[in-house]
């Protein structure tokens, strides 16, 4: 199933997610597509990025020659600190998360259920090495949890499902999902399409979703 030209690209998904980040927001971005969100926040909005390993006010990657291996983000990539940044230890950093001080977290997902359950840390495969990092803390503590994800897996299986089959990261935590096909809200009645990618029909999205969708 080749769908390369249907729907939004990874950058367009990040760009769409960036539209929903207001001025003044404190934001934590997960590894992968979510990292791209920072590039697309509209002009005029000042956003402060938190990385859970102890920095508020994370900036771009360093210029060559200015790298400090002790200035990294949660994905262990080299970063910089913006003017007005602050460093703190891990317990203080997760106090910001657990204490509901971070406004928005954008994460990747393996599965999202229609009640907002998120699975993004383990396939449950007994052969794999379990690793959770800060994902469970983020989804339990950040005010708004949004997901950026391809609508289906590499093998074409739906990632938006009635009930997650993978081990959960958090229960009922996801608010909004940006996929290559649509923007979808988690509502009390289930997944609701908010916006369709250009040229994508409701039916097309429904076919690739594991449960009933509510139209715009």
């Amino acid at each position, binding site marked *: 199933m080749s769908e390369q030209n249907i729907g939004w690209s990874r950058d367009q998904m990040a760009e769409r997610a960036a539209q929903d980040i207001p001025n003044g927001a404190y934001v934590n971005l997960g590894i992968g597509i979510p990292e791209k969100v920072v590039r697309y926040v509209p002009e005029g909005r000042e956003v402060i990025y938190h990385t859970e390993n102890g920095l508020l006010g994370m900036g771009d990657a360093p210029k060559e020659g200015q790298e400090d291996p002790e200035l990294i983000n949660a994905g262990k990539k080299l970063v910089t*600190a913006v003017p*007005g940044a602050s460093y703190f230890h891990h317990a203080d950093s*997760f*106090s910001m998360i657990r204490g509901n001080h971070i406004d928005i977290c954008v994460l990747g997902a393996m599965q999202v259920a229609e009640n907002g359950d998120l699975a993004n840390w383990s396939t449950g495969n007994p052969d794999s090495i379990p690793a959770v990092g800060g994902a469970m803390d983020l989804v339990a503590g950040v005010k708004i949890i949004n997901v950026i994800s391809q609508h289906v897996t590499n093998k074409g299986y739906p990632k938006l499902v009635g009930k997650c089959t993978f081990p959960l990261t958090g229960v009922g935590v996801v608010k909004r999902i940006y996929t290559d096909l649509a923007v979808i809200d988690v509502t009390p009645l289930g997944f609701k399409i908010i916006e369709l990618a250009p040229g994508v029909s409701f039916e097309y999205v429904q076919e690739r979703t594991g449960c009933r969708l509510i139209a715009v």
Partner: protein
Amino acid sequence: MINKQVSSVEAAVSKIYDGATVMIGGFGEAGSPIELIHGLIDQGAKNLTVINNNTGSGHVGLAALIENKRVAKMICSFPKSANSLVFPNLYRKNEIELELVPQGTLAERIRAGGAGVPAFYTATSVGTPLADGKEVRNINGRDYVLEYGLTADFALIKCLKADRYGNLIYNKTARNFAPIMAMAAENTIVQTKEFVSIGDIDPEVVVTPGVFVDQVVIISNPLLESVLVSAGEVYP
């Protein structure tokens, strides 16, 4: 652009409402945000629950807030001190409620509230009257009482330097409860002696990161509670 500075004390405290829970920084006079407290008196909100280590001195600051009958309940560790006259009088007349909390438990409850920890166990107060009615659990052979996190609708605190993001640093032992109250309050209102440009505070030395701060007002020459008390001042 983010700019948490507000132009006046009046604007800073304008949203505090009747019945609100208000954390007020300071240990005695050190760190007491006296201008913000006086602004709150002027503003008029009443029936407040106030969290502070003490109950103020003389007839200014926190003592004046209490004397003006704005405080329904105090949560504190040490409600009496050399110059605290107002609270004892009202307390004996049953006109103010008191929740007495050991100082370290008070600090930890505030920190827990700010850190999203709803409850924790501590050995402090086990076997004393302050543990009466509290759940006790034996963990690894020692008894501990269950204590709950404290949060507030507002915090009023004082610092030495602030920037427009709300990053704060403090002066000496005036730091005391301010950083944890800033974490635990929905709306943290700060009076700062100096307002500096973004980048002037080294990221390594920020004590309160801006994420915990909502409004900053500059008070370049703050009043000293001890001076006012010695002079017999009464607010308002």
